[in-house]
Every structure is written in C-alpha cells, then in structure tokens.
C-alpha cells in the first residue's frame, strides 16, 4: 500500500513538472481538509458524515492558452500525467485573448482575525449534544419536529504561483441550519454560521425556527398584488445581495448580470452601501489571498446607492483599465463576503415605517429563477412563515405567494434597513453575505390559480 503524500511534495512535484513543460504562468493550490456533518430530521439524527480530502488545483498558461486541472487522485503518476495532458490540451487550444496575466509578486498579505478555531479539531462528541439542544429549544417554542444540518471543517490551504506567491493558511468553519414544523404547512427556520465555535449559537437558531413555525399556524392563501415586503437576512441574502453579486465582469460579458454599463449610476437609495470584504473577522468568505495569490482586501461595490465598481482578477482588471481587487477564482472573479452597511432602525421600526401600506414579512425563500438575467427578471418562492403586517404588528400568517419582479426594481425600492448585520450562508444562499433585515416598497407578488 502506498504512503500518504506530503503537501509540500505535491506542490514541488507539480512545480517541477510545470517548469519542465514550459508553462509561463501558473498557480498551484492544495486544500487538505477534514469536514464533518451531522444531519437530522423528525428530531432524530439521520446520518453522520466525514470527508477527508486532499485536492490539488492547478491553473496554468502556455503561450496565452489557459488550462486548469483539479486532481483528487493523488499519486505522483497521476499528477505528472495530468500536467502532461494539460500541456497537450494547451497545445490544441486557440489563444485566450481575454488572458492578461496573473498577479506579480512580491506580496504582503493581510492578517485576518478569527479565521480558525482549534475547537473544531475534536468536535464530534460535542456536536451531538449541541444539535440536540437546538432541537429541544425549537420544541419548547412549539415545534413538533425539526430537520437540519450541522457542518464543520478544518482546512489547510497552500498556494504557490510562478509570480512569487507562496501562502499557507488555516481555516475552520461551521454552518448550522434548522427547519422546524408544527404541521406540514407551518414551518420556520433558523441559521448560525461562522468560523468560531464561541459564536455558534445553536439555541438561538432553534428558537427562531420553532417560534416562526408556531406563528405560521393557521396560514391562509395570500392575495396577489403589490406589497411592501420586509425581508429577513436569509431572504435579503438571496434577493438583495444578488445585485452586488452581479457586479462581476464575467457575468456581464456572458449575460448573467443586470449591471452592464451601470457603473456610476444610482441603482439604489442613499442608505445602501455594500462592500466585497475579504477581511471580515469570522467571515466565511474571508481569506488572505485569491486564486492568483493576490492579497485580498475590502472593495466598495455600491456607495450610497451608486454602483462604484466590479470585483476583478488581473485579466478582467486590465481589460477594464483598473487593478485587481483580489477576487480571482480559477476561471472568473468570485466574491468573498458581501457586506451591507447596516441601517439605523430596529426590526420593530421597519414594521412601523410600513404601517400604512399592505406589508408582508417574509422569513425565508427558495427557488429563485430568472426569465432574463440581463434584465434581472425573476421570481422566487417564500417558504416557512410569511405574515401580513398590520398597524406595525406581525399578524395573519399567509402562504402560496411568489415574488415576481425585477432585481433592479427591488434594489431601487429599498426603503430601510435594520441595525443588525447577520452572516448568512445557507443551502439557498451559497455566497457568504452580511446583511440586516430589509424593507422594500412596492414589490409584485403573484399566486397560483387553483
């Protein structure tokens, strides 16, 4: 039986082979992680999982032909043969006219607080008790049954580039979500995500889920029409954060963005300021360098409602006449943490502001799909508790409505945001977002015909 390969040997072997085959630019990245998951449904554990994985990723360039590989078959033979295949592949491709280099060193990397927590090295036994406490808390709030998942991981990332980058970083993370039911149509959800075990509040997540589930009992079918909507951070993390996430040159070029030619334009009200921020302590998208080895940072996307800029890698930045924002992914720029500056109101004040108009409080959503990305025409389905707000108070639970509008209308119609900044990353919101509760005016809701 072979021995497990040392990460530095994997990098050295790759480096030598890439040089031998005359690749001009390259980035070698390894990720060795140990990830675990505990899933539950109907208040009982359904499965416990563990993944031990080492992944080697290489992005390489030969005479302006761009190629990449991901190898999870880590023998010296496979690594060598894959890089040889890359050379052959590069030889058969036409030039990538969009490629303009990777970031040149030397580099100085930021020191980001709270990226790793040694508690997660041995978390299995605690995890069972903690998940049970969340289920119990949901029950105390009135839930009959809960389902959900806790995931945690410990990762060591190493990166080396032909342009002088050499970085090692250690991270941990957890993602807990719980969805509770009183009956098949009355449900609520809660979430807790981050990198530090001390911030992992299982009980609050369970309480949120149970409380909303209980409140949603007795829901009636909602009437279609125009509403003001108050979005929980989970919903805002999907629908409101979609607009700064569309500030990506790759998305604009292929027709996945509604922000073409909008830099400098007012796309939202004064109160909206959004960053892509890789440096946030405890942020799930925080990292010291991007996939080119370029140091990360904090970049403004929307300032007081004005679209200020896009995220970039070296190639997209040069094409746009600017500099990299440290957001390189292997193929296209990727966000780190999307951070919304919080507002000034409490959640209760958002309810009060909207008291004179038909208003819905939407706690969760899913299945956001686009008829037209370039125009931002979409619909999305509220799930879990949704409530009519009357005279500034949460009242009648309602169901079976669909948000059917455009992303630009919704962003433009943001009226207020709450003081909280809550980190969200869920099954429906894979992109880490820090966002408050958001009040949006005049949103179109539709319903199915029976």
């Amino acid at each position, binding site marked *: *039986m072979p021995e497990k390969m040392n990460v530095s040997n994997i990098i050295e072997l790759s480096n030598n082979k890439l040089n031998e085959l005359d690749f001009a630019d390259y980035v070698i990245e390894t990720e060795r992680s140990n990830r675990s998951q505990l899933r539950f*449904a109907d208040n009982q554990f359904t499965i416990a999982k563990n993944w031990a994985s080492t992944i080697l990723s290489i992005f390489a360039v030969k005479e302006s032909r761009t190629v990449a590989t991901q190898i999870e*078959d880590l023998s010296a033979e496979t690594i060598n043969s894959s890089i040889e295949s890359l050379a052959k592949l590069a030889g058969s491709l036409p030039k990538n006219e969009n490629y303009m280099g990777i970031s040149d060193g030397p580099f100085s990397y930021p020191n980001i607080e709270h990226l790793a927590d040694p508690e997660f090295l041995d978390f299995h036994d605690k995890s069972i008790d903690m998940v049970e406490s969340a289920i119990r808390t949901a029950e105390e709030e009135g839930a009959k049954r809960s389902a959900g998942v806790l995931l945690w991981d410990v990762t060591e990332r190493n990166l080396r580039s032909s342009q002088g980058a050499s970085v090692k970083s250690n991270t941990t993370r957890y993602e807990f979500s719980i969805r509770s039911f009183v009956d098949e149509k009355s449900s609520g959800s809660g979430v807790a995500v981050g990198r530090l075990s001390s911030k992992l509040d299982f009980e609050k997540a369970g309480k949120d889920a149970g409380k909303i589930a209980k409140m949603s009992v007795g829901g009636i079918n909602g009437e279609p029409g125009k509403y003001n909507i108050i979005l929980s951070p989970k919903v805002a993390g999907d629908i409101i954060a979609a607009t700064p996430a569309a500030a990506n040159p790759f998305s604009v070029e292929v027709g996945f963005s509604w922000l073409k030619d909008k830099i400098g334009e007012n796309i939202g009200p004064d109160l909206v300021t959004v960053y892509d921020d890789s440096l946030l302590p405890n942020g799930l998208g925080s990292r010291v360098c991007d996939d080119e080895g370029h140091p990360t940072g904090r970049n403004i996307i929307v300032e007081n409602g004005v679209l200020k800029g896009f995220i970039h890698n070296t190639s997209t930045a040069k094409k746009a006449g600017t500099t990299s924002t440290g957001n390189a992914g292997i193929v296209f720029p990727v966000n780190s943490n999307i951070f919304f500056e919080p507002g000034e109101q409490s959640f209760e004040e958002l309810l009060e502001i909207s008291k004179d108009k038909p208003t819905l409080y939407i706690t969760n959503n899913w299945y956001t799909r686009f008829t037209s990305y370039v125009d931002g025409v979409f619909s999305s389905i509220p799930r879990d508790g949704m409530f009519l707000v009357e005279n500034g108070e949460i009242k009648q639970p309602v169901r079976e409505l669909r948000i059917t509008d455009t992303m630009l209308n919704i962003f433009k119609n943001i009226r207020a945001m709450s003081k909280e900044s809550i980190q969200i990353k869920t099954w429906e919101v894979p992109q880490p977002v820090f966002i408050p509760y958001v009040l949006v005016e005049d949103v179109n809701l539709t319903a199915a015909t029976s």
Partner: protein
Amino acid sequence: MTSNSYDLVEKAIEEGNKLGAKYIEARLVKTSLNTSILKNGVPELGGIIRTNGIGIRVLKNGGLGFASFNEMTKDEMKIAVAFATKMAEATGRKRGKKIIFSDEEVHEADYKSLGVNGKRPMEVDPEEKIQRLIGLDKILAELQTGAIIPYRLFQMIDQTEEKYLITNEGAKIKSEIDLLQLFGLAVAVNPNTGSKEQMMIQKGKAGGLEALDYWKIEEYLEKEAKTLGKIVTEAKEAPKGVIDYVVGPNVIGIMCHENQGHPAEGDRILGREGAQAGESYLNKEMIGERIGSENVTIIDDSTIEGSYGFYLYDDEGVKAKPRYLLKKGIFEDMLHNRESAAFMETSSTAAARAIGYNREPIPRMANTYLEPGDFSFEEIIEDVKLGIFMQNFTEWNIDDRRYHSKYVGLEAYLIENGEIKHLVRRPNIETTTPKLWGSVDAVAKRDLLEFDAATCGKGDPMQGAPVYHGGSFMRIRKVEVR
C-alpha cells in the same frame, strides 16, 4: 482502476465486519473528465479533472455513518471505516425509531455504457472538441434574423466514470459509463428595441462524442437561435383569461420532474430533506389515490440505453426497473432507497444514487417522462379554440412541497380556432399539481416522444444528478392565465 484501489474496497468491508457493522458498503469511483469553456467565441479555459476515491457507509445500532477519502492508503481506509462505524453507533443510540434497510435480492454484475470506438471521451483529440465548440458559437454569432446574440457561453464536458461497489451482504457491482454534456447560454437582442430573451442549452447523453451527431447539434442550434431571434423581433403579447395549453416534450419533461418526480421521493416524504430541498404534498396513505386524469402516466426509468440518467443497478446494488409515479392518474410508485423503503414497509425501487465517491446514496430520479398517448399533434391542436402552444420553457419554479408551480414559455404560439398563429411572449402557467395533471385531456403518440437533459439538484452537500425528462405533446384544458 488499480488493484490497490480494489484491495482497499474489499478490505474496507472486512474492517467494517470486524467492527460489528450490521451493513457496510464501500464504493470506489474513479472519474476522468475533460472540459472546455468558450466565452463569446474565446476559449476561456481547457480543463481536466481526475478523481479517485472511496465512500464508505455503515449501518449499526440503528444509525447511519458515512466517510470518504481520496488518498488511497490503508490508514485512510481504516480511519474512514472507524469513523462511519463509531458515528453510526453514536447517533443510532439517540434514535427512538431505528434506521433499517429493506431486504433486497443480492446481485453481482459488471456492465458498461461506452462511446463508440474512436469517439470515447479520452480518445478524441482536444483540438477536435474545441473546434466543434467554436463552430457552435459561430452559428450564434452569425445569426441573420434581425436580432443579434452578443452574449454567448458554452461548456462541453466529456467523462468516463468507473465504479466498483461491494457490500457485506454480497453485492458486487462494477460499471463503466461514458457521458457527454453540453451547456450553453445565449441572449438575443433586438437592436431596434433593445428587447432581450435568453436561452439555456443543455444536452447530455451516456456515450462519447458521437452524441453531437446524434443530436444534430449544429442543425439544432441554428433552429433554436433563429427562433430566439424571432421571439425578440416578432412575438406579441400572450392572451389572458381561461384558455387551453398545448405543451411540448421540453415542458412536459420539466413538469413530470418537478410536479411528480420530486414529490414521489421517499426521503422527502419522510422529511429527511426537510431543511433543504423540502418535503412533499404526497404521503404513504395517498398511494392508490387519483392525482391526475386517466391520460397521465408518468414513468421514471433508469434503464433506457444511452440516456443521461442511465444505470442498471443503483448505488446500493439493487437492480433497476421502471417506476410508475402515476399510472393512469393514480399515484403508484415512490422513488426509494433501502432506507426509505424500510420505513414505508416496502421494497426499494432502486432509486439510490450517489453523485461521486464522497456522497451518500439517496433517492433520485433518473429518466422521467410522460407515457405517450394516441393523438397526433394535429388532433391535439385542432380542438383548441383559444390557447397557447408552449414548445419549451425558460424560467420555472415550484414550492418545496411540489404543489404550486410556475412555467414561463420561451418558444410559444397563439392557437386560434385549431390553428397555430404567431409567436407570443413569455406566457405563464402558474397552477397547482393536481389541477395540472387533472386537466390533461390528450397526449400525443410515441413517435413524438423526446427527452431533454437536465441536472437535478438535491442533497446536502449538493448532489447534481444527470437526468432525462421528456414526453410527446399534451393538452391542458382551461388554465387561468393572469
């Protein structure tokens, strides 16, 4: 696959037995995948992915544990088996109702679905692949219909996946499957009005590069691009009110998948996906109940040769056969793995699929379609006074109990007095599942049956499963369009 990898799979079973596993399966998956990405005619990336790993699943003390690894050493294997066993036992101890698996016949089998000689994924020169993709892009770039297509993205993926599954009950299944996949996005713009319409492209098939010819891909793309151009230049507003709909294979397919395939998944019905993909409007007591009209029979069948969702034995080693999700409108079969089947005191329907060595097998669809009927296309249309013929769809979504769905038409035409008239823009069916299936009064013949490829999303972590969905043509009476 190397003999070392096979040895590890076999030793994992021995190790699990030693540790007292009631059930243990070890699944070795080795994937060799090539890909090319073309953005607006420029080759953005050529890529190669190589994976080789083992997934272990253990049932002990009424609990389930899963562990995977990709560094093929004996130590890694032992750690994985020990974890899966320990955590199965620990979580099982906490369960009131213990997890059990249904009893199933044990099989040994070795099967393949490969591309034709010289066209298999690893045999075709990368240059031939990228040139074919560049040719497809040119068709869109040079469109002459009064519209332009300035946004274009293509990705081609070809792969070979070898699997070796064994269990401590004696199942031993080897398979090797080639797969070709083509994805694309095109947005047409009317240069005079600025009106835009997008088209998502997905083709997929078990096999090699010969699939491109099977699809007549250049001819297909040219036809679709011309229609997209006409939609932004010629389409008129769709009628409102109570009208009839005639929908084509692409729309029937997504309806079968979303409105009947997902809600028939056993794990959803049991609430196991409650926090993610949701639950179901169906339950065990509804088996035998009428959901749709007599014209609606929906089948899920993984054994269709050359299909995108092809397999003969599922990832628990159970032999596959067609599943009748609705038979003449009556709810008959669920999609079960051995876990959900046991909870419902029935047998597995061989729906356990794991997308990768590092995923657990859960109930999934494979190839879901509406069984054809007796009508010709002309007969279906001629009896419609006012309606819409929706050939394919763009946006869609459905609530997480699979009861309220919405489908927005892409290529769609007005039907008036039994005749197909002009294109209409983005007509919309937003209705409930029983209303949808209950309103079908005609289904077209078998020679009009077609399938589309799709990637079905489910699980946590996500498992994107290749599936077919399809049908011929069907008529839905009296749908209210707002």
